[in-house]
């Protein structure tokens, strides 16, 4: 099979993977050196496809042959899809060629499981090893880890890769047992645990050999099972706490051709995925807990973002006086992000914060108006009920589309 045909099949098979970040690697450069590649710590998105996702890495599968039968996956063994397999050399060459042309920041390599978990993992490691050792490639490498593989192989993977990931796949044990019968949450967690232990060891012993300097991440499929956002966020929180993950990626389930009856026919609204990312960001960056964002079972609100929803449900904390309130609470105000919160703290050391400052900082005034007090502004206390505010601030409702198939975008 021609390289072009393989690329077509194995990129197509990888497009369901959500993660494509290339950030977090230590700084490296190739000036005056043999080989190729640099990392700056900040990933670069080199392109965007019409699905709105960025292209930062060459994201492909080594092969889409797979002996597992995960119901949500297009490459499951009972799926009738064209199959292909890259040779190790082909992936290495393709990565370098794309890198030289500035299409990508590196490689994100995953694979269907062939022969055995160990055999598959060995192949993935071989690609990374060849890139690093033979070709002195200093770009970003992310390897998907096969949870059942020998821990020694995972260790070697961490030596070459900037990031490792083990997919939790679904938010609950029951769903994994039902929809991914050959996978087991037990082994997935053990693999994540073993990666975290290696990361901890490396942190204690800086001179030890490299181990996944950009940490580990995972992916959860949303909407293939009945789990609600409450469950999903709690699972994410458990994973962050237990395995020091850099990211949890949420991938809205894409219905696949001839999908089995065990998974739904329709995708969840993409907005739900978006809200989960927003909530996840609040967990990681803003110090919210899953319990605060989702005190009860159910899904995140679609009409307002999670921070606004939290503020509306917790009016007793508001309005906050920007000139007095504890600095750590400012980012909790709707319409004020982490960066502007920092700027406000800096500014209030110089002088009192006024309403106009918020406008110049391009804070979302409509959102924050009921929640802040400044030197020259005070909202009418308790004048507006949360319900009314919510109606006022919610995203505009959209007319339902009766024939989505007929509507060209």
């Amino acid at each position: 099979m021609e390289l072009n045909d393989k690329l077509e099949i194995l990129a197509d098979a990888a497009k369901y993977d959500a993660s494509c970040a290339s950030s977090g690697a230590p700084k490296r450069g190739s000036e005056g050196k043999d080989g190729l590649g640099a990392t700056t710590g900040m990933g670069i998105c080199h392109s965007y496809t019409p699905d709105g996702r960025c292209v930062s890495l060459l994201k492909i599968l080594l092969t889409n042959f797979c002996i597992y039968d995960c119901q949500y996956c297009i490459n499951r063994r009972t799926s009738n899809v064209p199959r292909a397999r890259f040779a190790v050399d082909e992936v290495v060459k393709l990565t370098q060629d794309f890198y030289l042309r500035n299409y990508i920041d590196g490689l994100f390599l995953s694979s269907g499981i062939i022969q055995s978990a160990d055999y598959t993992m060995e192949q993935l490691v071989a690609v990374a090893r060849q890139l690093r050792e033979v070709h002195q490639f200093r770009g970003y490498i992310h390897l998907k880890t096969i949870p059942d593989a020998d821990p020694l192989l995972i260790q070697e993977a961490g030596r070459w890769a900037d990031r490792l990931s083990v997919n939790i796949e679904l938010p609950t044990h029951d769903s994994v047992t039902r929809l991914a019968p050959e996978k087991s949450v037990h082994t997935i967690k053990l693999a994540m645990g073993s990666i975290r232990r290696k990361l901890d060891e490396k942190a204690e012993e800086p001179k030890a050999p490299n181990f996944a300097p950009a940490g580990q991440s995972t992916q959860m499929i949303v909407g293939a099972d009945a789990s609600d956002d409450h469950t999903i966020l709690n699972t994410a929180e458990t994973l962050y706490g237990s395995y020091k993950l850099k990211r949890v990626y949420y991938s809205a389930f894409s219905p696949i051709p001839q999908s089995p009856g065990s998974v739904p026919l329709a995708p969840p609204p993409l907005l739900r995925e978006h809200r989960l990312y927003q909530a996840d960001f609040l967990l990681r960056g803003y110090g919210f807990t899953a319990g605060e964002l989702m005190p009860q079972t159910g899904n995140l609100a679609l009409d307002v973002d999670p921070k606004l929803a939290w503020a509306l449900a917790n009016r007793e904390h508001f309005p906050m006086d920007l000139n007095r309130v504890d600095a750590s609470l400012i980012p909790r105000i709707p319409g004020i992000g982490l960066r502007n919160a920092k700027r406000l703290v800096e500014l209030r050391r110089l002088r009192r914060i006024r309403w106009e400052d918020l406008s110049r900082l391009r804070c979302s005034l409509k959102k924050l108006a009921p929640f802040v007090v400044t030197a020259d502004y005070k909202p009418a206390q308790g004048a507006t009920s949360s319900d009314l505010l919510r109606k006022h601030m919610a995203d505009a409702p959209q007319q339902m589309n009766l024939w989505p198939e007929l509507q060209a975008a």
Partner: protein
Amino acid sequence: MKPGASPAELAAGAVAAVRAGRPLLVRDFTEWRAVARELLGARVAPASVTWGAPGEDLFSGAPASIAAAHNGGDLLSAATQADEQEPINGTTPRPHIPRSLMEMLQTAACYRDHDRWAFLYRVIWRWQQGEHDVQSPADADGQRLNSMVKAVRREVHDMHAYIRFRERPIEAGAPHFVAWFEPAHDVLPQVAEHFVARMGKVSWMIATPDASVLWDGATLHQTGPLMSSAADLIDAGEALWLTYYRSIFNPARLNTQVMNSHIPSRFWKNLPEGALVPSLVSQAGLGARRIGQVEAVGRRSGRTIPIEAEQAQPERQQPSKLDECRRCDLWEHATQAVGGEGPKSAKIMIVGEQPGDQEDLAGQPFVGPAGKLLDRVFEQAGVDRKGVYITNAVKHFKWEPRGKRRLHKTPAQKEIEACHYWLEKEIATRKPKVIVAMGATALKSVLQTGSVTLKDKLGHPVRHGDSWVVTIYHPSYVLRVPDESAKHEAFSVMVKGLKLAQELLDRLDVPEPPSAS
């Protein structure tokens, strides 16, 4: 002002030029900085200065470009040399400009705007007057400064991202890769450094309408414009890229709004994949969106993998019975159950509370900080840790999130009760002569009573069934005690307790009952 004057010369004549009403002509940040410093020193207010740029000089017919003004000179090296040679003038007071503001000014100087030098001088003047909020985006000038900085940084970022190199045939010689880009601001020098680090010894060139940079594998050369449009090269790598771009797009998730918000339209015409976008979008709208797979792959004949389900199941270590325990809810947020560890013949059993963060990952009891402390207790008491059996009252780690860490949480009575099933099994099969209960949780579980307190039993061994029960502190308690002397005291209580356990064992000295194996 004559072209080719050094920044120092420019600066020296600046005050006189302003007094004579002549415009100040500066070509780059280094020159501006030298002049601005001189003017600040002489307290020349912004309103009395007229700034011009070479491109806007009405009387010169030169094209409106920085590179042209330099007559093809070496921009980068001129800039760095000027930096090094800057004279320190003892008579003019040095303005105190913080590094962060200087960096902002330098970045903003790349912003193509007719009055950039005048604006930057106003900013630095205001700072000097003590108006330090001029740096904040909440100030009117500060807002403009920040948005200039942001636009320039964005342009640098976009240029890093959206430059596309095409490969030239080997026989054409160096440079092997050429790129064409139309930047909105003067960011080429910064961008060139990025690609020097990225490309190693490979030769390349980036051409823009105003200037070009060329890397020969060892040195960077800056020149005037060399090309007027993108190179027309047939590059096999580009064909593969287009295939990749088509295939990685998931039509089921069509969301052009996000795509367009990230790549402004002016970039698309120079991106090879730009030409694919309209057809991908319309295909997605016409059904590919529904089946979630592009035609190209969907058309090919498929293949299911003939393999039995049993074969697909990898030979993995099956979870032990304990791992499958669902007697309470703690399993859900733990990695694994942590059972006991120690020789079958052990006569002392040590019972802790529950596994911690490290134990949960390792699957072994007492490997974390508490375990390390316990090792020291063993050493002081003269007891061999390898000879005793160590386990916990509760087998799954109970915790709550605190930021990104797991904070130990004391197990509830019902969890202790649920887990007692496993402890009882361990006691029944090991038949220890002495059980050392560490902490209240362990004591309650071993004695099967919720009313007992640690204080009552410390130093007072009790009979329980066929064993003696010795109570000591939990090592985590010793770690937690803030007061150094109390810590020492608690530690010695642990050592004493363990010694007592060993003495009891020696004193018992009764032959094994024949039934025990």
